């Protein structure tokens, strides 16, 4: 019960090598093939958004389960908790956007004589953009930190007050997150196409975030089990993770389709422009996105036996993680890089850098304490959980 993840020097070195390799190759590609500033900054934004989404989705996973006072997730709660420690790093990475803001967002141009964007100036201006950015991150970082702190106190103390406080902060986080995730997705992604708007967008992004985090938590369980930890995580827990991935992949498709169909039916020029650029210029990726994120988890996890095998669920989770990266790519790249957009060495290496950084931070945070919070009141329920 007191087992602790040992973040061995070997793993650290592998991750550091991947990190430096990723950033060096990216720099080499930038210097040699000159992909254009907007594509480089779009890559930064894409990966920021993706990995912030992983952290926030993990926090959302915990908050929902804690507010609902669920028992089954108690054994694996340290994994999503560790994933939220990426947020302070993500904040710094997101502030980097300041240097490339003119390459990303057309609305930052002061001399733009555009009636539509003029009308949105009250929201879309650089000082307010960064004020909001700081506000979002302040809330996310403080709330997830408070949740994590109270949760970690339960490793040593068995006072129920910390447990109740955790639930309180989870509730606060849910409210704050529900609003800010929408607003941040308008800021960071939707305003790339400054003319375009979709009222469903925030929700769509939220579900995408949640699915990626579920997939990542599953992969983390798989990894730790391969390394010989988490013996008490049984097929019943994996079953529930798989159910969540399955259900929320379908829900993501529902959101995707609800957004697409209304715009397709309404046929208003300012709305269809978003889909026309993506469907006409990136047709293959457009359908790959839909295919991977719906068909793979749907048919891959539909039977009960497939949901209970960690190896298989991990494969599906990995595919879903890739699929949602493509989903963010489709949201961000066509709007910024335009015709220069593509998935090449630059994209792969940038993502490699971010992914190894993210995994490094998560594993380092995991190694700071036991993998199970043994004074959690629901621990017995989770140990005997049958799904």
């Amino acid at each position, binding site marked *: 019960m007191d087992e602790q993840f040992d973040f061995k020097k070997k793993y650290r070195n592998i991750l550091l090598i991947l990190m430096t390799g990723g950033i060096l190759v990216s720099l080499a590609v930038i210097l040699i093939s000159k992909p254009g500033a907007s594509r480089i900054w779009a890559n930064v934004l894409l990966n920021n958004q993706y990995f912030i989404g992983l952290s926030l989705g993990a926090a959302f996973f915990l908050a929902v389960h804690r507010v609902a006072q669920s028992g089954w997730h108690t054994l694996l709660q340290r994994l999503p908790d560790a994933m939220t420690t990426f947020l302070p790093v993500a904040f710094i990475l997101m502030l980097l956007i300041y240097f490339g803001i003119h390459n990303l967002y057309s609305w930052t141009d002061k001399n733009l004589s555009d009636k539509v964007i003029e009308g949105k100036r009250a929201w879309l201006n650089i000082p307010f953009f960064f004020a909001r950015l700081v506000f979002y991150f302040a809330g996310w970082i403080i709330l997830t930190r408070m949740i994590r702190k109270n949760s970690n106190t339960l490793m040593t103390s068995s006072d129920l007050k910390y447990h109740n406080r955790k639930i309180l902060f989870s509730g606060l986080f849910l409210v704050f997150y529900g609003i800010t995730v929408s607003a941040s997705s308008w800021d960071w992604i939707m305003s790339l196409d400054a003319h375009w708007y979709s009222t469903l967008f925030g929700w769509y992004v939220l579900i995408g975030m949640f699915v990626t985090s579920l997939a990542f938590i599953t992969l983390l369980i798989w990894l730790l089990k391969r390394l010989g930890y988490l013996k008490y995580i049984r097929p019943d827990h994996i079953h529930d993770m798989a159910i969540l991935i399955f259900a929320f992949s379908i829900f993501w498709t529902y959101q995707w*389709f609800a957004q*697409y*169909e209304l715009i*397709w*039916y309404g*046929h208003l020029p300012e709305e269809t422009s978003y889909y026309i650029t993506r469907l006409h210029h990136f047709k293959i990726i457009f359908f790959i996105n839909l295919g991977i994120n719906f068909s793979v988890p749907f048919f891959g996890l*539909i039977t*009960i036996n497939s949901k209970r095998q960690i190896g298989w669920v991990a494969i599906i989770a990995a595919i879903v993680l890739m699929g949602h990266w493509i989903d963010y790519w489709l949201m961000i790249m066509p709007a910024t890089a335009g015709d220069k957009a593509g998935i090449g060495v630059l994209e792969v290496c940038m993502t490699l850098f971010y992914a190894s950084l993210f995994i490094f931070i998560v594993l380092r945070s995991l190694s700071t304490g036991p993998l199970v919070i043994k004074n959690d009141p629901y621990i017995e329920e989770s140990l005997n959980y*049958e*799904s």
Partner: protein
Amino acid sequence: MRSSSYISIYFDDEVPMLQAVKKLLDSKEKITDVLSPFPVHGLDEALSIKRSRIPIGGFIFGALGAILAFGFQAWVFTVSYPLIIGGKPFFSIPTFIPITFEMTVLFAGLSMVAAFLIKSRLKPDISFKPVDERITDDRFVILVDTADKESTLNRVKSLLSGIHTLEIR
């Protein structure tokens, strides 16, 4: 209810009920049936009941519903009664999807209900008199098969002495 004689053990919670089931099976008592107001996790495994095949039927009928709904709309809007709606082409897949989805759910749902009713031989005029009204409400009941009621009752009572039961008779 049943012609053979049996003992019924009443519980007001699922957890002691599940413990009792495991204990009874460990000491080789024959459990005829377990009645519960809602599905209890782990009960099927404990009683080694084979998994239901209803989901397979649900999938097949769901697929059938999807094909029927899609095919019907495609036929109506291209062959039988082509109409121009909002300047869209006659064969436009996005318009067909909501109805296809709904029909899939409807077919899967109804077929599973029907399969369940047929399989468990439930029909409207069925007459059924429960031994105790509470078993149709909020009670968990284990029925243990017995040849000699007196001795089994004593055995079961001593076996379950550590578990919170409401009544054993």
